[in-house]
């Protein structure tokens, strides 16, 4: 009797947990949600852990593992022939193999559903850097969106591309001096953004100021001098005009992200001059007030008799 009850309970539990995901996914997660640690692959260490709860809550929560991990069929961990992988994905996987540290097929599998966005990305500076130049440090889907297992809608505060997080996410690469030097991007781009009125308001939580992607776009980001780039001088009147109605060519020069330094001498020395004025005035008023206070105390307590 005991055994029957136990078996029934186990079956019940099994069926209960199967409900949100299907049998295939459940089978993978049975091991991978409890596994901890990393295994060595060709190029990198692979984290074998998948948080099943977070996966279930993500936008991809209802999907089969094998929809992306196409190399794995019903028999786990036995790579299948390329035949089962769709032609488009296989071709793309070959193109981005330089970027993929573990499994280019799984990386390319986003194409299956997101072919429109993937198409834009392939023409973008980030995509071309990977596909045409074979650079491993170009940004692909997961660099901005995080692990596909845990992607949440951009409107969620937890999303890496939520407007409150997106500047930081861009900064993951664009704050690195090595990246700035390698691609000749100029340093201190984010620092200058944070110093600007756009950036200051953004940090304070203003919901209408532009973040990186509002001016530079996201999936279809271009090099600034590309004719299609929204920040090319000729296109800026439209880009800035989204918020600043009637933006002129003269107006759009106001945002540069250039550091204030000796190569931009007017504001540099103007600020130095103002600091001298500031400190000079502070020194004067502070010493005047302090001296006066002491003399006042002296007059009140030590010269009192004389005044009367």
């Amino acid at each position, binding site marked *: 009797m005991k055994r029957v009850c136990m078996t029934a309970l186990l079956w019940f539990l099994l069926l209960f947990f199967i409900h949100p995901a299907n049998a295939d996914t459940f089978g993978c997660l049975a091991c991978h949600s409890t596994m901890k640690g990393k295994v060595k692959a060709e190029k990198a260490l692979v984290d074998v852990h998948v948080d099943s709860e977070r996966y279930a809550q993500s936008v991809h929560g209802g999907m089969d593992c094998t929809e992306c991990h196409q190399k794995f069929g019903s028999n786990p961990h036995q790579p299948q022939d390329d035949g089962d992988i769709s032609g488009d994905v296989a071709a793309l996987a070959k193109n981005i193999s330089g970027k993929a540290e573990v499994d280019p097929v799984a990386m390319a599998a986003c194409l299956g559903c997101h072919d429109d966005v993937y198409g834009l990305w392939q023409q973008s500076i980030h995509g071309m850097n990977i596909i045409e130049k074979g650079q491993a440090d170009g940004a692909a889907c997961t660099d901005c969106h995080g692990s596909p297992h845990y992607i949440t809608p951009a409107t969620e505060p937890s999303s890496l591309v939520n407007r409150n997080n997106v500047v930081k996410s861009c900064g993951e690469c664009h704050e690195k001096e090595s990246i700035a030097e390698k691609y000749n991007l100029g340093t201190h781009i984010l620092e200058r953004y*944070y110093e600007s*009125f756009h950036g*200051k*308001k953004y*940090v*304070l*939580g*203003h*919901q*209408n100021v532009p973040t990186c992607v509002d001016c530079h776009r996201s999936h279809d980001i271009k090099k600034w001098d590309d004719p299609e780039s929204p920040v090319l001088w000729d296109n800026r009147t439209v880009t800035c005009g989204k918020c*600043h*109605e*009637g*933006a*002129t060519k*003269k*107006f759009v*020069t*106001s945002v540069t992200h250039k550091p*204030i330094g000796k190569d*931009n*001498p*007017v*504001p540099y020395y*103007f*600020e130095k001059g*103002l*600091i001298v*004025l*500031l400190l000079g*005035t*502070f020194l004067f*008023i*502070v010493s*005047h*007030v302090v*001296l*006066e*206070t*002491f*003399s*006042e105390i*002296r007059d*009140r307590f030590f010269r009192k008799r004389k005044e009367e």
Partner: protein
Amino acid sequence: MNKEIPEEYLRFNIIERIQHIILFTTFLLLAFTGWAVKYPEIEQSQWWIRVWGGPETAGMIHRVAGITMLLDFIWHVIYMIYRIATGKISFHKYKTLIPLPKDLTDLVKNLLYFMGASREKPLFGRFSYLHKFDYWAVFWGMAIIGLSGLFLTFPVQASHLFPAWSLNWIWELIFIMHSDEALLAIVFILFFHFYNEHLRWEHFPMNMVWLTGRLTMEKMKHEHPLEYELEFGDKKEVDK
């Protein structure tokens, strides 16, 4: 008795007092709502801006207060021009707001007195060098911060005014102007004006003249002896 000398002296008329009240209300609002934008990376700034209704609301308060202050400023300038044109403002050396060499010697005399090197305090007219410094600092500050603030509020329209050769640096310049001058103004008011009109022994907790506009003759004699002499000097002699 001193029949000809009134008990009180009208130092600031009602118009001047209203101008001052508008000035300091808008100044405080501007300082409070602008402060967080100067140092947004500090955690408290984000809390502080929420006190003012969040960045959007605080920004609107800042703009409205700024424009009100500028209107107050323009009103004051027109009022002063009118007063000068109708001969109501005296340019006598003991009455004027214009800085004179005497102010510099007064400052030196005062500093010497503070340090105990001299036993003689300088005698002031209607406006001492402190008052003149206070007035012109605010005047200059309103012009600089107000103008740059207008440019920042209406950047597209402002960009038409700038010559092409200035475009590489003009916005940085305007931004520095607005932000650094504002810091100067806030520290100046907080420290100097508050000391002179609130903490100073004879005024503590505050000099009421901003509200009443009137000085007692006792105070008048003590604080503005030269103006007193000018206004009532001969009458006093008659009484004696």
